[in-house]
């Protein structure tokens, strides 16, 4: 293998995207994704069994497509990496089993890696080596975490996370309340652009005692309830619901808390760089507010392009390549899929 530029294929199946990415060193060659989101839209949310069945159908075709697009032969690969957790157990198992089959067939090392660490590592193929430390805010339908990352291959510290709903989940639930489709994020973002912030919705865990006990934790469940009460009161009074204004006001509350805590964490931990990842990073208001608050605080903001913020194989390949470059030991062939893998455990 070329020690300086390892060719690594990464597999991601922790939720509803079947992702296969290939990187050479710190260069992204391809990011192939097959999404089953349309299948889930009929159910109004991700159905684990539907996701697992789609992964099985899409796994090999996605590997094949990735190789074709990158002009890479499987036998040229130096290593395989795969999301071994956290995520939906049945979905993870499809990716982990497929990755093992690849590694075994090719006789190359296998790296079972943490999904959240991969979300951080993906920025390496977008913006170059990660500053150490980097502060990472990961926000999606499955996670809301604030992480201090001294070394993405060996040292990630969790500063806080959601104590109830994930940020993306709150978007989905509020979208449902407003009669907008699933997944809610893009629809709320779009609706909000037509509206104004007219309602002062609660900012969870931002005052007094909460800032001591849950300094960098998040809570979105109370906000979701506040929105749905507000809408119900309007409907009960026979008044029309100003969907765009509610969307804008809700979005403002979420984004305000996320960026406020992230910037505070950077200041307190001495991190000069903030990275935002996860599906919610595609939110236009989040990007704008994070940019202006980082500018004010003299912090450099790094946000990968939207396709690399959502779940994908490139991020797993990016982390796998770092594992190879830093000389980390490969995982064993009996590595499990761990649906509740803690973020501090970077490799299985």
């Amino acid at each position, binding site marked *: 293998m070329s020690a300086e530029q390892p060719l690594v294929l990464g597999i991601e199946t922790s939720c509803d995207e079947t992702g296969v990415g290939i990187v050479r060193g710190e260069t992204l060659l391809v990011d192939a994704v097959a999404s089953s989101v349309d299948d889930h839209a*009929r*159910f*109004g949310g991700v*159905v684990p*069994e*539907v996701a*697992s*069945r789609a*992964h*099985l159908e899409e*796994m*090999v075709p996605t*590997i*094949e497509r990735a190789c074709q697009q990158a002009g890479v032969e*499987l036998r040229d690969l130096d290593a395989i990496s795969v999301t071994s957790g956290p995520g939906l*157990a*049945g979905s993870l*198992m*499809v990716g*982990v*089993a*497929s990755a*093992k*089959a*690849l*590694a*075994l*067939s*090719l*006789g190359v090392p296998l790296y079972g890696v943490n999904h959240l660490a991969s979300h951080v590592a993906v920025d390496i193929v977008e913006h170059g080596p990660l500053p150490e430390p980097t502060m990472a805010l990961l926000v999606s339908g499955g996670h809301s975490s604030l992480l201090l990352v001294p070394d993405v291959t060996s040292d990630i510290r969790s500063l806080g996370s959601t104590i109830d709903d994930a940020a993306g989940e709150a978007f989905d639930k509020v979208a449902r309340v407003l009669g907008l489709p699933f997944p809610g994020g893009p629809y709320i973002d779009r609706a909000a652009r037509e509206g104004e912030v007219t309602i002062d919705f609660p900012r969870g865990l931002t005052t007094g005692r909460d800032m001591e006990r849950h300094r960098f934790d998040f809570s979105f469940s109370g906000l979701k309830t506040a929105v749905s009460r507000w809408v119900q009161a309007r409907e009960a009074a026979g008044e029309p619901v100003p969907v765009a204004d509610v969307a804008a006001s809700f979005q403002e509350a979420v984004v305000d808390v996320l960026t406020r805590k992230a910037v505070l964490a950077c200041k307190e931990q001495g991190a000069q760089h903030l990275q935002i990842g996860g599906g919610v990073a595609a939110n236009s208001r989040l990007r704008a507010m994070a940019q202006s608050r980082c500018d004010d605080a003299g912090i450099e903001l790094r946000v990968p392009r939207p396709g690399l913020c959502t779940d994908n194989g490139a991020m797993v390949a990016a982390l796998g390549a770092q594992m190879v470059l830093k000389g980390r030991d490969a995982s064993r*062939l*009996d*590595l*499990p*899929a761990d649906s509740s893998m803690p973020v501090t455990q970077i490799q299985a």
Partner: protein
Amino acid sequence: MVILAIDTSTTAITVALHDDSDVIAAKSHLDARAHTEWVAPLIAACLDESSRVPADLTAVAVGNGPGPFTGLRVGIVTGLTMAHTLGIPAYGICSLDVLAEQAAPIVDGEFVVATDARRKEVYWSRYAVRSGSVERLTEPAVDRPGDLPEEVRSLPTVGRGPVLYPDLFPTSVPVLDVDAAVLARLAVTRSKAGEPMPVEPLYLRRPDALTTAERAAK
């Protein structure tokens, strides 16, 4: 030629290699909840034991199930990925057929295969052995064992059905889990006979969720 056979539809995680004349390695591990952990190491062990390398493989055969979904998929995706990576064909065989084949030497006439489908149900199919060869009489199905006709339940029964529901399947045949060695033999026979063997998971149940339209209709 060397065929790799894998089945994860029953409690056994089972793997075997067949060199066209005989089974040259076979390994099984009993653990219905650890398919992801065991399949690849068992394949590696079979290859080691028979002094073969993955590049020696000429085909992969997997059990299509039916079986509990999560474990079933692990075996199938392993087989499909290896076949694709090595550029060799992948075959699929109904796992109940394999159990029937395993039982053939010790039963005569009609019998039923009934395996654990969880949720108080069994996957089942009716078979007959006539002059040594096995014939499937019904398509694989999933039902509560109590809902099967008495005439079916009273037949000699292969699989874990009788272990789980001894009152409902009184005549147990001591063949519980799939053996990949037999799956490998069946794959060799069927491939020589030119039978189509598509890989397709036999779920027999749709995902357990209602669409928003169905919820609204309730």
